[in-house]
């Protein structure tokens, strides 16, 4: 869709311009193939783990494992149904960033790691500083100010307001 009609686009074949051969042989829908494969893998694991650790019982008296087992099987079937049409169909290119997701997830993990060891305030600073890596406009000074004001706000809201029993600082070790 982007910039359709610009001179450059005329030399880049769009999806409609492809011959059936191209569509069938060169460009399967990798998005759905990967998605379907992951769904199948998860379904197999889920069904296997259910029948391995839980009793299936009978339809009359279903065991704890019966429903999860069935869900696992359904997932495998759906995964196959996702993959089959994807093999012969062109799809969007797999387009993903690595840096931003890693930084944001690392910021959450930093919080989870810091809270039990150092308390909430250090965890807030860690989260803000790690997440600031995702945008160059967030300078160290600015991040410091954001983290400091968040610490005060959260102390007011959660500790003073809601009496949450979480230590703001925990240097007990």
């Amino acid at each position, binding site marked *: 869709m982007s910039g359709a009609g610009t001179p450059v686009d005329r030399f880049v074949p769009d999806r409609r311009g492809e011959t059936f051969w191209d569509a069938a042989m060169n460009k399967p829908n990798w998005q759905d193939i990967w998605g379907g494969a992951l769904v199948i893998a998860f379904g197999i694991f889920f069904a296997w783990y259910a029948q391995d650790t839980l009793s299936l019982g009978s339809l009359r008296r279903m065991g704890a494992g019966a429903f999860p087992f069935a869900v696992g099987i359904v997932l495998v079937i759906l995964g196959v149904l996702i993959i089959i049409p994807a093999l012969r169909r062109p799809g969007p290119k797999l387009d993903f960033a690595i840096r931003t997701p890693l930084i944001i997830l690392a910021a959450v993990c930093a919080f989870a790691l810091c809270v039990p060891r150092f308390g909430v305030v250090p965890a807030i600073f860690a989260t803000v500083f790690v997440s600031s890596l995702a945008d160059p406009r967030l300078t160290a000074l600015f991040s410091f100010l954001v983290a400091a004001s968040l610490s005060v706000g959260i102390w007011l809201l959660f500790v003073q307001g*809601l009496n949450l029993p979480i230590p703001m600082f925990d240097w007990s070790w």
Partner: protein
Amino acid sequence: MDILANVGLGLQTALEPTNLFYCFVGVALGTIVGVIPGVGPLAAIAMLIPLTFYLDPTAALIMLSGIWYGTTYGGSTASILLNVPGTTSAAVTALDGYPMAQQGRASVALFMTAVASFAGGSIGILVMMFFAPLIAQYALNFGPAEYFSLMLLGLVAASSLSDGPPAKGLAVVALGVAFGCIGTDIYSGAERFTFDTLNLTDGLNLIALAIGLFGIAEIISSAGRKEPTMVGKESVRMRAMIPTQDDRRRSWAPVLRGAGFGSFFGTLPGTGPSIASFVAYAFEKRVSKTPERFGKGAIEGIMAPESANNAADQTSFIPTLALGIPGSATMALMLGVLIIHGIQPGPTLMDREPELFWGLVMSFWIGNVLLLILNIPLVGLWARLLLVPYYILYPAVLVFICIGTLSVQQNVFHVWTVAFFGLLGYLMRVLGFSAAPLLLGFVLGPMMEEHFRRAMLISAGDFGLFFDRPISAVVMSLTGLLLLHAMYRTVRARMKRKASAAG
């Protein structure tokens, strides 16, 4: 009159100072969340649930619902001024709202969408007031077979009606049901998929799952992006808001039709406000004598969808409150809140908790009036919110997500859950799966299993039960038809591609 007594009781509850206060907080927060693109209603509601643990259930639901319909009011602001919808249900509003802003008519558009939202919302509430009790009455003699069939229909509809290949939507729902299996089995007490950790014996935490899936995934895809440019900043003034005679004449019919579509699609599982607004827009364009004006700033093109999405917001509460079966991810969260507060949802809710039900319904009226007041004189303020750059917001949102999740049970494990589902949510986005049905499956899955196992106990393992009971049989056939339709769509899409590839 029974309904009058209920309305009186509801008004009395909704007008209590605490409830009134939380209604205001909810709609104000909703407007802010709706205005700012990159923070959706689902993530916002999930993030604020921990704060509502300390409230009584009525106040909690009043506030969270306020966020839900408040976002729909606010969502149109970003659509009109930035051409970036603040919420998905306001996406259609950008088609004609943004051209209006480019023509210097942003204030008129903002004023008229607020009016359309109010009108649509009001009609939706009226529909809810009359139909919810009827449906609940009817549902009183539903057994496990009916409930299982209805929930199955809800899940299949929610996943196969969304865009993209139906198999992908169904897979996401099944994934949600699978995650819902984790925890202690209610019948046998067996530990399922807990991997010998105490943290999982109560199952995955609904709030952590929702925050990770929607909040974190949203931040990932919005952080570091360029800020969109705003048009019509200068024209957002009270004085410029007065619509012309022509605007008013063109508006009332689309508003009424939009509210009709909205009320209808709101009650159905899987459709909701976004689809309602699309259908309403398409219908207006079709019945218009001047369809060429659409997309170039036609006032009908903003009135119909804004009326439709607000009506749908209200009527989507009908199946959730009257049957205990949510039709969308947001409603699944609302149902989760009820359960967290120890209230069993279902058709008897209205009898058992009349203050909660009628108080909530009447709070919708109050909330809609508050939103009208908030949105018309203060629209300049909200528009200025759009100028707050996202890079200032996202670290704060992230911290709030972490601390909110931690506060649920003071358990760091839930923060790890958020990180896990954040990763899953991003992966699903990359692979083109929509995440909302997962939440629906997660909430409905355990209920479905319970009803299914109860039904099997009653029928001694005979599947025929689902087809012997008339209501269940009808619902099951509808589910079958939906699946057939999904298959037909897949095949037809392939035929079309072949035809276009060959030609």
